[in-house]
């Protein structure tokens, strides 16, 4: 293999067939148009093609393949949510993630690390116990552990009580994992396109055609496209795209910032989250400490980074991991998060016939990529809301049937 690599490195010709079969021309009619070529949109296209035999699909994106929040998340996958509806949904996602490298024939570098949600207060212990019991009831591996067990399992963590907020215990979720986010999107794109799905980057949707309460197609920067069914999967721009269809959403766009340190040798095996300290961290396969915290304090359609965020993050991070004082920040970025009132997504049917929505993914979108694609595909193919997605209908806000996940979906409570 090294010799083959060397040979290709020295040759000037194309060394590898392209993974993605780009189709340059836009047709005038498709069965399904998916707005947004991120992980969710591509997964939806893939499952429509493989599970439902629908391949006359165009996936459109204003930017490029997986260049939005698919590229901006911190890659954590877990199922230790708070509500039975949420736990069942994310549990299926974890199961799909485990087989995804094989299914998509691409190494998504799925790495189960164990996920700790630290508790520093009695209230946090109560929430951790609540989540552990709901998780166990739903068949998800989670348990409440005490400080001594935290210290045994994660020795690099500062479990001393000589700190401002001593660790009292943790919700321990062994299946918690990280994955290579780009590969997930590329894998879905590759396999969908191999089955005839078209992906069109640099194609902005400028209008949505609705006649008599039913969607007819979309207007794009490259002309009008007719489609039987249209799906929007545009995290960060959900309200703006929905407005083109005349829909208003329970969503506020708020930036979520993150950063990574320079790479170092493996020292932190686990994923560590602290709701009370508003921080989370894991070490990537290439050694960078991947860190994030709470969403910004006010709504914004912008992905700038701020010093305030990093100062707040590091103040708490150094208490948990004093060795981090020697590390420098290598990269910083932000994504625009679709925050919903109940910290749960908005998926499925809308008041417009054949117009489907995949939105409200706040800070919990990457981990749902496979299950969302699978279930949205089912929803689109059958025209009915799948059982698993019923709790997440847009309509739930009209009937006060909220799915309160704030205690498990964010680190800002």
């Amino acid at each position, binding site marked *: 293999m090294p010799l083959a690599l060397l040979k290709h490195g020295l040759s000037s010709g194309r060394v590898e067939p392209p993974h993605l079969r780009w189709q340059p021309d836009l047709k005038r009619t498709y069965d399904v148009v998916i707005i947004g070529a991120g992980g969710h949109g591509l997964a939806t296209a893939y499952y429509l093609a493989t599970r439902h035999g629908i391949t006359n699909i165009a996936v459109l994106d204003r930017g490029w393949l997986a260049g939005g929040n698919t590229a901006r998340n911190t890659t954590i996958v877990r199922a230790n949510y708070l509500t039975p509806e949420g736990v069942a949904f994310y549990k299926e996602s974890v199961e799909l993630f485990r087989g995804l490298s094989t299914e998509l024939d691409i190494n998504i570098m799925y790495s189960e690390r164990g996920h700790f949600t630290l508790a520093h207060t009695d209230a946090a212990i109560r929430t951790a116990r609540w989540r552990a019991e709901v998780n166990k009831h739903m068949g998800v591996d989670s348990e409440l552990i005490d400080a001594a067990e935290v210290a045994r399992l994660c020795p690099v963590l500062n479990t001393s009580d000589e700190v401002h907020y001593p660790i009292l215990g943790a919700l321990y979720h062994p299946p918690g994992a990280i994955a290579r986010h780009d590969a997930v999107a590329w894998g879905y794109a590759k396999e969908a396109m191999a089955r005839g799905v078209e992906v069109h980057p640099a194609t902005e949707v400028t209008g949505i055609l609705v006649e008599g309460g039913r969607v007819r197609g979309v207007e794009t920067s490259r002309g009008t496209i007719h489609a039987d069914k249209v799906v929007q999967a545009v995290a960060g721009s959900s309200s*703006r795209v929905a407005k083109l269809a005349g829909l208003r959403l329970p969503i*506020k*766009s708020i930036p979520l910032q993150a950063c990574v340190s320079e790479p170092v040798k493996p020292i932190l095996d686990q994923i560590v989250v602290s709701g009370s300290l508003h921080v989370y961290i894991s070490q990537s396969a290439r050694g960078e400490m991947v860190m994030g915290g709470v969403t910004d304090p*006010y709504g914004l359609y912008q992905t*700038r980074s701020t010093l305030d965020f990093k100062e707040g993050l590091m103040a708490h991070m150094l208490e948990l991991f004093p060795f981090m004082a020697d590390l420098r920040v290598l990269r910083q970025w932000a994504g625009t998060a679709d925050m919903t009132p109940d910290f749960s997504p908005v998926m499925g049917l809308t008041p417009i016939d054949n117009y489907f929505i995949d939105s409200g993914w706040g800070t919990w979108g990457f981990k749902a990529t496979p299950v969302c694609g699978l279930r949205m595909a089912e929803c689109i193919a059958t025209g009915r809301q799948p059982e698993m997605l019923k709790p997440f209908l847009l309509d739930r806000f009209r*009937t006060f049937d909220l799915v309160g996940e704030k205690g498990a979906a964010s680190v800002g409570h």
Partner: protein
Amino acid sequence: MKIMVCPLNGPRNITEFVCGGDVKAVPDPAACSDAEWTDYLFIEDNIAGEVDEWWLHTPSNTWFIARRNTLTDEILATMTVADYFDSKRSAADAVAGAGGAA
């Protein structure tokens, strides 16, 4: 640190403030439909551009109105609640007056 000008306390660090959401009319709970009420509670205009919002200066517990641009992250103006609604009222009167004249 980003600076916001509190109408009562002058320029202060943005960390001293909390955003209270868009300025919007409260429907009459006794007269409106359930849909109007849930829309008021949960639905957001989520405008990309200029917005008028309620803000609170937490140390002094002062509520006021700020106009921001959500695309550029600029604070365009801050004003007392009285000034904001007075200017809204005179603008509405001007429109009504102009309509009457036409």
